[in-house]
């Protein structure tokens, strides 16, 4: 590492690295957006990256660098050389790619190497520049891996089978068909009964939340506040139960439900779901209850409230934020639950959303329907999650690591 710590070496090295990262990013993004062939080239990245890195260590501003690189890349793209190689693509695509490359390389790279000088560097300066570059790469990498599957999901749902087979990369959307874009969604709701699945999933999840809270609030309060023998063992066994895999329980539950005639009924599902969430909810809530000052409750007791009144009038209002996160978390578990719904429900009129999507997974049903179903299941939980993100993240961190 020591002999790398010179501006005239670090700069070009980071320049090559970053040029290649952006070249790959642009190639992938442009391929996904237009369906045309874009290829990143390592050799050209080296050829272009070295002078770029060197120049930016020497001087220049972000604006100048971006502008110059954009022009340069537009020329090379048209000539068919450069870090991103492409065939005969439209002018718009070329301009977009060049702009993307120019700004994507020039602006961040200048920021990365800002503190570097041409000569020897301190370890601090060197590592700072490297870390900034890696961080830039990290943002692109994580965003890409998270976004791409969801992008594919949404875009596939808007296309049709023939288009999908013809060019799997072409996700450009023909806006001229207007509402026709949402054909798959309309068909799912009208022909595949997804409207009713949506409603079933929704009310099962809400019922699960209520039943879970009904059981978990008193239980969590008792574990957190009241002294009784076996308290420690109890809070430990909550965690233990939380670790029993669902598939182990699913088998006897399936047998018992078959024998009792509860299979294929919403009642059966509503009976089972809360039990899978009660331990989580109890664990989360008791942690929160412990954090509440006991003095307020004692004051309530002194003023003549009974314990139950204390819970109702003092503890619960104080723990509303925790109740919100627990509810959200439980809602998410119930909404996303797949295994039990898959095993216990066979009657298409009683499917939950996840079970409905599973039934779409057959060779006779076109892919875009499957993806449209997935979007229908994902959007509500995402909307809820983004709207109440603060509660959700808090709930997740409190809810230990169930998944």
């Amino acid at each position, binding site marked *: 590492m020591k002999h790398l710590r010179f501006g005239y070496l670090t700069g070009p090295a980071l320049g090559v690295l970053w040029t290649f990262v952006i070249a790959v990013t642009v190639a992938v993004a442009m391929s*996904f957006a237009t369906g045309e*062939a874009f*290829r990143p080239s390592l050799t050209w990245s080296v050829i272009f990256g070295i002078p770029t890195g060197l120049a930016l260590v020497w001087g220049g501003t972000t604006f100048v660098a971006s502008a110059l690189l954009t022009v340069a890349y537009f020329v090379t793209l048209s000539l068919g050389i450069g870090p991103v190689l492409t065939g005969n693509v439209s002018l718009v695509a070329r301009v977009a790619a060049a702009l993307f490359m120019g700004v994507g390389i020039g602006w961040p790279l200048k920021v990365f190497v800002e503190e570097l000088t041409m000569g020897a560097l301190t370890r*601090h300066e060197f*590592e*700072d520049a490297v870390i900034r570059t890696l*961080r830039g790469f*990290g*943002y692109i990498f*994580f*965003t890409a*891996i*998270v976004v791409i*599957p*969801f992008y*594919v*999901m949404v875009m596939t749902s808007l296309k049709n089978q023939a288009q999908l*087979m013809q060019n*799997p990369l072409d996700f450009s959307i023909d806006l001229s068909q207007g509402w026709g874009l949402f054909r798959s969604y309309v068909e799912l709701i009208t022909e595949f009964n997804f409207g009713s699945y949506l409603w079933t999933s929704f009310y099962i999840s809400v019922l699960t939340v209520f039943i879970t809270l009904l*059981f978990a609030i008193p*239980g969590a309060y008792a*574990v957190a506040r*009241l*002294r*009784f023998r076996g*308290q420690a063992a109890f809070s*430990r066994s909550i965690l*233990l139960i939380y*670790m*029993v*895999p669902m*598939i*182990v*329980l699913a*088998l006897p539950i399936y*047998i*018992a439900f*078959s*024998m009792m005639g509860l299979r294929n009924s919403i009642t059966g599902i509503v009976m089972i779901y*809360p*039990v899978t969430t009660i331990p989580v909810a109890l664990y989360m809530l008791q942690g929160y209850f412990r954090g509440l000052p006991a003095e307020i409750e004692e004051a309530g007791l002194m003023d003549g409230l009974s314990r139950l009144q204390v819970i109702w009038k003092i503890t619960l209002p104080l723990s509303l934020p925790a109740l919100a996160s627990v509810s959200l978390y439980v809602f*998410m578990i119930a909404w*996303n639950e*797949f295994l039990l719904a898959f095993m216990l429900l066979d009657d298409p009129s009683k499917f939950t959303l996840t079970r409905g*999507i*599973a039934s779409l997974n057959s060779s006779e049903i076109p*892919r875009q329907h*499957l*993806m449209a*179903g*997935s979007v229908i*299941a994902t959007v509500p*939980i995402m909307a809820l*999650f983004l709207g109440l993100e603060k509660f*959700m*993240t808090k709930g997740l*961190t409190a809810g*230990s*690591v169930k*998944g």
Partner: protein
Amino acid sequence: MSDIGPPRGAGPLARSEARLAWGLLTPTILAVSLVVLLPLLAIFWISVKPVSLSDLRAPDTVVREDLRGRPAAPGDEATLRYRLRNSSPSSEITGVTLEDTWPEGLTLAGELDPRCEIAEGILSCDLGDWEGGYRETLNIPVVTEQAWFDTVGDVEDTPVEVNGKASFVLTNNEFTLKNFVSVFDGGEFFSVLGVTLFYTVFGTVGALVMGLFASLLLNHSFRGQGILRGLYLFPYVAPVIAVAFAWILLFDPFSGSANALLVQMGVMDQAINFFGERPLALIMVTLFEIWRYFPLSFLFILARMQSISTDMYEAADMDGASPFQQFWYLSLPQLLGILSVLFLLRFIWTFNKFDDIFLLTGGNAGTRVLTVNVYEQAFAVSNIGAGAAVAVVIFACLLLFSVFFFKFMSKEEGL
């Protein structure tokens, strides 16, 4: 004299508090033991039973009663018919008896089956033992009277009672160790175990490392940080079935975008069946596991990172520590607690994971883990007993892990 000293035992206040506590906990305990403990016991019971999917219904007698011959006027002849059947094709029912109220307005015309008799308006028959798949039709010739038509008689008005003793495989005394033998037989078990361990270890470590990187990225305040944090949680929050199918589509060998992209970029010559080839499928499901659960580790690690005081870093800066040194000598030791707790918990959850692999590959192409094996044995091979035996093995592994876990947890009061 003896009253001096601290009070011993529980006072009335403490006792009433304990009573209240148990009162509050009872519903939860009942519900949980009904759905968790009872099935757990049941799994042990079933695992030593020779039971397959078709044995799930106890053998039962089935009877249909009707009146044949369409009597139109008093004096017409008709046949009272009982169609009897053993619902199970294989199990025997012993000592079957039939009892039915003799319908009003019908009289016996001819010979009654020797096994039956009519006494005090009740027809009763002793039908003996029925082997599996037994069927019989019992015909009783009758003559209708006026009373039959007056009451608009219907023979099905009175329920027929047919009783017999059946030995139900889930409740009888027949035990077997065959299930366990078949689980451990043929070396398949060890390959399944190997796959499970690969998936669990690499899935857990991968998700932790990715989570650590992601939290290093976001442990800064900048514009858009909240949006990125929300975005990075997407894989975890979305329904597993939706993202699993999105992955399958993305990596489809014929019309998958990933294949098209890689071919176009010149990385590969031809499309690869990512979820269908032997070592690759296992790597892909492990990557999926990492992708789906890195948000969780990231959330916990980020929360811990933000609680580390900045003084230490300022001091380190003054002393000339470089950023990498700060990370290695300051952040990492601080994060070790949460990392190890996360590792243990995630290890157990990943070991228990079923949905992901089931949806992605169905356990094919060398990705069958223990949990998927339970399902395969119980439903694909229809051998519930063998499925239960695998479940018992899983539970035993789990007990082992949790002993280790609690030993460790008592030291690490992290979560």
